[in-house]
């Protein structure tokens, strides 16, 4: 087991929330005060009083547009970002489509529909972040890390993460730029990409998730303010994990970021995404679009640890997470989605793979944990268009408190796709008697050579298992954490190492107090 101190520092470093220095120091003092003898039990206590640990609000002076949405607002966003005319047209086309669309209500979630005129569509920190790279980090912070026995250089190596921090829809800092540039990898904010690499953006944006794809995708296409852009050239294996960290900071704003990852022929990239938001009484809207394009022989691994504010114990506040994620696989390409969903009041998210090229592979590994009044409707779509395409779906749902957790998936085999293969497994774990677990798997096979397998189970934590743990001196709360971790291990082991540690902790926090 990795000592706890390293653990925390990893979390902080990865988030790289430099704009947020005071929080940093607070965390570090906390660690200093505890010296080395920090036990799991103390952690539990801390977590109990802490509730949502990322619920801080950073007082960054920021520029926020008035609430409301109109063509004028879109033109203003576009002007502010100094975008070329084709981008403005593209946005306006999306907006016009959006005005004709209706909000979907087929998902198994209940909520007060957001008023789209009561949201501010642009909020950006006025001052640019102080730290452009790790070298500029406050010496005191460095000192603290040294005391912990980890030099920053080592940290850098250990985490090996290049981070693009997006606060309130505007990219604040991108680290490790130089290392990446040497390899020809482009990793920057999407606004920068629109300026610098318009031909790439123009060629690929909206090709996987068209503007008219769905209500939220259309909204995002119209108003997205920033996001990440990544291009891996032919045959390049990205030497480090690329990461984006999203944060909604301002009140009354929605976050609409757009991520575009293009892996050229034969390249490889592993991409991480983390999300947090301050604890607020109101509901905040997050409607992102992620497009992945894996050209021939390329591989993209996309991992998400989503920890938006889930609302308080009574179900007030929390983030509405309505995200469209989709990847397109060309010949022999592979896209792998891994997600750990612990946050958000409402999750509506279906990372999908379109297996267009022959021999392409799609994978989906997911853990969704819901507690208190959270509602999650999440799953995946695997669309098999090419011959010999394969897909794997492993979905684990854990529901506790008064939450509802749904898996909704689609496996579609087109008539011309020969010898396709799919395996799906979705398991649900129920804790307590006030929550629900649901599965809606759709299987559509139009080819006789397809082999599709689907299995799902729902159960509770076995009393025998709990008893066994108790008998060995492990208390119930810990035993549950242990069992849930075991239940999810199939997915957790797909995460990059340091992310897995964070995810494991998140699972424990999310299930806090769910033992009846």
């Amino acid at each position, binding site marked *: 087991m990795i000592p706890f101190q390293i653990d925390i520092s990893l979390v902080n470093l990865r988030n790289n929330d430099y704009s947020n220095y005071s929080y940093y120091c607070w965390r570090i003092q906390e660690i200093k005060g505890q010296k080395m003898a920090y036990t799991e039990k103390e952690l539990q206590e801390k977590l109990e009083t802490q509730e949502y640990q990322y619920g801080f609000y950073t007082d960054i002076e920021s520029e926020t547009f008035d609430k409301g949405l109109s063509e004028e607002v879109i033109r203003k966003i576009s002007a502010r970002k100094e975008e070329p005319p084709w981008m403005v047209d593209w946005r306006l086309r999306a907006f016009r489509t959006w005005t004709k669309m209706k909000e979907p209500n*087929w998902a198994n979630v209940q909520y007060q529909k957001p008023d789209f005129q009561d949201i501010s569509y642009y909020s950006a920190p006025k001052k640019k972040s102080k730290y452009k790279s790790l070298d500029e980090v406050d010496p005191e912070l460095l000192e603290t890390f040294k005391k912990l026995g980890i030099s920053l250089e080592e940290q850098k190596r250990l985490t090996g993460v290049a981070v693009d921090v997006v606060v309130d829809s505007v990219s604040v800092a991108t680290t490790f730029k130089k290392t990446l540039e040497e390899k020809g990898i482009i990793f920057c904010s999407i606004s920068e990409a629109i300026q610098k690499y318009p031909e790439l953006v123009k060629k690929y944006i909206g090709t996987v998730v068209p503007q008219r794809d769905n209500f939220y995708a259309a909204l995002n296409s119209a108003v997205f303010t920033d996001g990440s852009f990544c291009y891996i050239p032919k045959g390049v294996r990205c030497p480090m994990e690329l990461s984006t960290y999203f944060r909604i900071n301002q009140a009354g704003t929605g976050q609409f970021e757009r991520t575009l990852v293009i892996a050229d022929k034969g390249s490889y990239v592993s991409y991480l995404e983390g999300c947090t938001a301050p604890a607020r009484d109101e509901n905040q809207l997050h409607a992102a679009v992620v497009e992945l394009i894996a050209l021939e022989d390329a591989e993209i691994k996309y991992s998400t640890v989503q920890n938006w504010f889930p609302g308080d114990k009574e179900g007030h506040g929390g983030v509405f997470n309505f995200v469209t994620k989709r990847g397109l696989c060309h010949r022999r390409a592979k896209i792998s989605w891994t997600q750990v969903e612990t946050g958000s009041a409402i999750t509506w998210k279906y990372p999908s793979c379109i297996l267009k090229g022959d021999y392409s592979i799609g994978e989906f590994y997911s853990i969704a944990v819901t507690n208190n009044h959270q509602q999650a409707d999440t799953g995946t779509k695997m669309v098999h268009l090419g011959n010999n395409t394969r897909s794997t779906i492993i979905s684990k749902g854990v529901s506790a408190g008064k939450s509802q957790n749904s898996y909704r998936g689609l496996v579609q085999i087109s008539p011309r796709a020969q010898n396709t293969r799919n395996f799906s497994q979705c398991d*649900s774990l129920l804790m307590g*008697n006030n929550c*629900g677990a649901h599965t809606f798997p759709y299987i559509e*096979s139009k*080819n006789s050579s397809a*082999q599709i*397998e689907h299995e*799902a189970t*729902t159960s509770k934590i076995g009393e025998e298992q709990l008893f066994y743990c108790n008998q060995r001196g492990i208390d119930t709360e810990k035993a549950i954490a242990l069992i849930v971790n075991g239940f999810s291990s199939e997915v957790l082991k797909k995460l990059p190492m340091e992310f897995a540690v964070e995810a494991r902790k998140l699972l424990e926090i999310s299930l806090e107090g769910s033992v009846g």
Partner: protein
Amino acid sequence: MEFKEKLLSSFFALQEAVLLDDNPLIEDRRNQAFKTFEEKGFPTRQQEAWKYTSLSPLLSEDYVIFPSGDVGIHPNDVKKYFLYEMDTYKIVFIDGVYSPFLSNTHHDGFDVNLFSVALNQKQHRRTIDTYFNTIAPSGEPLVALNTAYAHEGAYIYIPKNKAPQSPIEILHFSSGDSPALWLQPRNLIVVEQGSEAQIIERHQSLVEHPVVTNSVTEIYAGKNASIEYYKIQDDLDSASLIDSTFIHQETHSHVSVHTSSLGGKIIRNNLNFHQAGKAINSTLKGITVLEGNQHVDHSTLVHHAQPHCESHQDYKGIFRGSSQGVFNGKILVDRMAQKTNAFQQNNNIILSDKAVCNAKPQLEIFADDVRCSHGCTVGQLDQNALFYAQSRGIPIKEAEALLTYAFANNVLESVSIPFLKKHISLQIASKFGVEMGFGV
């Protein structure tokens, strides 16, 4: 939608001329149902429950709603559709009209009777008032349409602690007398505490002509009651069937419904179980063997509302030609229903490139101490097994039939009437055009 207009406009006239209700309660239920249908109309593919099945190809014909019914059929023409020539209770309808000549009803001790008789006789009023249209949900437009027009069908009432000696057959023939026919049979089956019944239902057209049957069956199983219900769907390619069956189970009852869908233009089976007591057992089995342009949609719902209940679903599908199969199974477990054990399995084999299989096994669970699982597969016959059979001198056609039969066999095994089992086996063999020795 023209046919809807026709149904709506003819309702009041028919109510005065044919239905002749003297029971205000029934009249009220009819009017309510009529309003529901008027509001909602026929379901479309926009509705989630009808996503994979479109009724629009059925609605273009000008159907006769109330056929004349004076068509005679010679017993020799329909003999082959009877399970036994004698020895069973039979309720036979020709074009929706009761045929006393071919039927064999029973009125002593328990009732194997007609729905129209039960509606109008005082002695059955209590049962009709209690159960008619109370088991079926009120919001379904097709059920509502049937309720509004409910006039004829089977009425089976088994009082406490009785067990009929032999199975009860419900047979619907369409003679082809009218160019296009829309039938709406309504069955009510009440099996009281501690009783048993075996029922076989079959719809058969004798001549190729467009016929649509919108059938609704309500089944009540009292405490400790046991019901086995078999549906044989092996109709001509011109006939369609929309079957809605609603089952209400009391404590310790066992109900099994076995559906063999072997032919028809469009078949839709809505099978709904509501478990209202403890320690109930529900079994749903299905075999689907399709070819040509046939389309079968199984939509099941098992609602576990009480603790310690079990349900078991097993559906096998074999699809050839450009046939389409749909399986939409749902298990709903209420918060109350702790210790539920629900199992659902759906296996499909696609034997041709144009055949389509859509499956949507759903679980909706609100109780934590349950064991629910489902499995769903779509695949082909095992090439190695086929090769093995061929290497032993079995021709490919026979080998395919044998493997398919073996695939469907564990569902067939659950048919407890030997004659019926043999009958279904023969039907499956004939679908594959092989002789597997069942005829001997």
